[in-house]
């Protein structure tokens, strides 16, 4: 029963967007004052978009809620990793509290914390810029080292295809940074590395990307159609 309800709701939801897009906004006979057909779904489009935003917010909250359940369970049962779970929950509460007090001045006043505004702002800045921003940038920066290691292991001239890939990577890597201009500035513009890199992006890369995108979106369309129509799903 539940799966049937889900399928029906999915079908109707998809049908709404398809019909709203495919049907014309209005149809009018030549010289007529009023149209004889107006799209009945268009007035509901804003409500549908609001529902999408609400659903997105609900989905966004699912992650933290599951994390809290999991780590709180760890802590209460004192399983392996309970200390780490305690640290996570502490920082979660701290971050929520500081952000809430910062964003909602009425809450600050209601809690009698107006006098400590500067302290809360400093605490928020420490968590946001000192920890979160720094950790986020660091985790992405690690990719640079993995890239060097991967280039050392995998960029090997072991076949013609590998060689072409390596030379292409070399040209693009140098062409994208000022180093390429520096190394080839003495050559005519047509022979400089940035020009070659631009050609690689504009011609062979674009051709391949078009093929990939056509294939990807054809697959996504098929998958979306299956999901919308409930085709191939198990029945109760």
């Amino acid at each position, binding site marked *: 029963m539940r799966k049937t309800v889900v399928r029906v709701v999915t079908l109707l939801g998809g049908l709404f967007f398809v019909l709203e897009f495919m049907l014309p906004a209005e149809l009018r006979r030549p010289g007529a004052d009023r149209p004889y057909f107006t799209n009945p779904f268009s007035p509901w*489009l804003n409500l549908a978009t609001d529902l999408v935003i609400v659903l997105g917010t609900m989905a*966004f909250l699912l992650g933290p809620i599951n994390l809290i359940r999991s780590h709180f369970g760890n802590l209460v049962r004192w399983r392996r990793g309970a200390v780490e779970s305690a640290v996570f929950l502490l920082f979660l509460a701290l971050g929520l509290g500081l952000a809430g007090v910062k964003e909602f001045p009425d809450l600050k006043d209601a809690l009698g914390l107006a006098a400590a505004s500067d302290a809360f702002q400093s605490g928020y800045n420490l968590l946001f810029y000192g920890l*979160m921003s720094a950790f986020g940038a660091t985790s*992405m920066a690690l990719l640079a080292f993995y890239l*060097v290691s991967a280039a*050392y292991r995998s960029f090997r001239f072991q076949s013609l295809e590998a060689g072409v890939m390596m030379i292409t990577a070399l040209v693009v890597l*140098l062409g994208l940074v*000022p180093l*390429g201009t520096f190394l080839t500035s003495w050559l005519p513009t047509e022979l400089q590395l*940035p020009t070659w890199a631009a050609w690689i992006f504009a011609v062979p890369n674009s051709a391949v990307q078009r093929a990939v995108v056509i294939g990807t979106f054809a697959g996504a369309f098929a998958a979306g159609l299956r999901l919308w129509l409930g085709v191939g799903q198990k029945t109760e």
Partner: protein
Amino acid sequence: MRFLAHLHRIDRRWLYVATLVLMLVPFVKPLTLPAGHVSRTTRAAFELIDSCPPDKVVIIDSSWDAGSQAENRAQLEAVVAHLCRRKIKFIVTSLGVTPLGPDFARDIIRPQVERAGYEYGRDWVQLGFVQGVAGALGPVIDRFSRDLWGLYPRDIHNTPVEQLPLMQAVRRGADAHALCCFTYAPVYEWISFANAQYGLRLVFGCMTIMCPAYYPYIDSGQLAGMLVGNVGAAEYEALNGTAGRGTRLGVPAAFGNGAVIAAAVLGNIGLWAERRARRAAA
């Protein structure tokens, strides 16, 4: 030859150390490399924004956070510097990617608009973050293009948009002169909804690693311009006559790319030497 054969088996930790040292060099000893070449995608983005009429507005969708700040921060800085120099009014949004977008954007924009003498509400507005469903931002972008006031009834300071003078000129996203989207990888729905259905001209600012995917849209004209990573920001700054973060970070990026190339070359020399040694032994 035996020594060269060992280049094939360097411990990756030495590679990490060498990469770190190489990328620290430009910070310890400031170096400059000529910007010189400006790509057509950056030039097209610059000319589009530069051609903004005085009665039009540019919308900036700043949807990046700490992970991609290495490249998106410089791009946003460069474009905002251009807008402030030309006294072009702009609106800042953050659609669907990260709720941290508005905070990071505000830190970049606020000092520049204060220096330029911009008044909030009249010359620039920040509307804040709107949540969307990952992979399904289409309806949100469609609403953005068609009914901006409906999507953002209040700005980030909780002021109703009808009370903001700048918003009187932009009731729909499509009313803007152009939209610049700065994020790790701008979603294709901007192209299929905002540009294809409403004619909004788009500029993307993306990470270097994601840029190859957008070149077909540059060629077809659906994307008016693109800033490719830090290099795009440096090129934009060169066109704007400034030297900011993009230009400063271009040299460490060059050294980083040099490290990747050096690692590939070392690996190939080691492989070639080892094969020669094996053939000689056989």
